[in-house]
């Protein structure tokens, strides 16, 4: 081969995934051999550090996932709640109520149990679409749409005050989430399980919007 291989190619050798041609060059080139030795030494030094223990962290995650709304920290309780948050609470609470009604209507045991991961988890094996369930789904979806609209308006109002680069990143994330949501809604039709996933998608989108606003609220 002509010339030295690129850094990425040398890196690939250190990972054992490289063309024989490159490897042959490195074997006969002192400069590249040395560079490769450094790459391997760096990787070895970094990877031989102690591993992280995480088993004790799951309980805290599970506990928070079981809560519909995260409790406010002492610091948050002291601060006046911004007006967008008050409106979101109304929208989200309505949506959550609708979703709860939906779950009870369709399957009393449906829903995840995060505190007992090894136990048998109820599957979403609903009997099939019926008008009652679909009507509840429509209501829940409408409430989520409303919450999303409120937050989108708040974001649009706050956007000009944000760092332009950060705003573009948020725009991209939100546009991607919207596109995915739209696509999943388009194919869901009257499939109840798919419609439930659409609701999950709405919940995720609303959370994303809320996180955007909270991040900006916390870091004006």
């Amino acid at each position, binding site marked *: 081969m002509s010339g030295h291989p690129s*850094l*990425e190619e040398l890196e690939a050798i250190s*990972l054992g995934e490289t063309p024989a041609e490159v490897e042959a060059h490195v074997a006969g080139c002192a400069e590249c051999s*040395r560079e490769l*030795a*450094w790459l*391997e*030494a*760096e*990787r*070895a*030094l*970094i*990877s*031989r*550090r102690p*591993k*992280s*223990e*995480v088993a*004790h*962290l*799951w309980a*805290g*995650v*599970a506990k*928070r*996932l079981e809560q519909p709304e*995260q409790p406010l920290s002492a610091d948050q309780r002291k601060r006046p709640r911004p007006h967008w948050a008050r409106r979101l609470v109304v929208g989200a609470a309505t949506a959550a109520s609708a979703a709860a009604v939906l779950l009870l209507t369709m399957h009393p045991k449906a*829903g*995840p*149990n*995060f505190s*007992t*991961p*090894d136990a048998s*988890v109820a*599957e*979403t094996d609903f009997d099939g679409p019926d008008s009652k369930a679909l009507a509840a789904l429509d209501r829940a979806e409408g409430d989520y749409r409303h919450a999303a609209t409120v937050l989108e308006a708040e974001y649009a109002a706050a956007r000009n005050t944000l760092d332009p680069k950060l705003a573009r*990143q948020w725009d991209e994330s939100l546009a*991607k*989430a919207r596109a*995915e949501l739209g696509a*999943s809604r388009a194919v869901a039709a009257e499939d109840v*399980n798919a419609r*439930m*996933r659409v609701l*999950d*998608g709405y*919940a*995720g*989108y609303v*959370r*994303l919007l809320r*996180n955007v606003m909270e*991040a900006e609220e*916390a*870091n004006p």
Partner: protein
Amino acid sequence: MESAAARSGSDRELLLRAQAGNAEAFRVIFDREAPGVRRFLGDLLRDDAAADEGTQETFVRAHLRLTTLEQPEKLQGWLFGIARMVFLEQLRRKSRDAPMPEDGEPMRVDSAPTPEAALLSGEADKVLDGALADLSAERRAALLMRLDHGLAYGDIAAAMGWTLQKVKNEIHRARLQLRERLASYLEGAA
């Protein structure tokens, strides 16, 4: 603990089950990915309690947004992107008035010390730790995603919100900075 059923599922099935609200599937994802996320946040925050809290926050957010992830093979990079945002928020809360350290341009590294000596040196781990701490948080994040967690450059670009070229430049500079520190330590020790 993973059940046999959960382990037997492919990554795509696992993700789909988690997206559908299956708590066991999400727990499997946590068991697989949390060690890397915790280590990543530990390296960024350099504070065990904050890293534990950040790891939990990352997985809570990941659960809430799980339906936005379509490609299971991107899961690790996606989680690291969330972890990075959590880290930045923690950093801003803790040191709003303190500017983030800026990265200098690394010097060209003298070729005298050998990398093998770095591996054999008992102090090299401490030197490495100090060198990592001296990198800016963003450069450190990119470097560790590559060296410690084996993410592809494209996945790092997505997680960091950078162009591919910037990822390559930053990782290259971070490497030179690390090597500069290790080399100067080895020269002094020789």
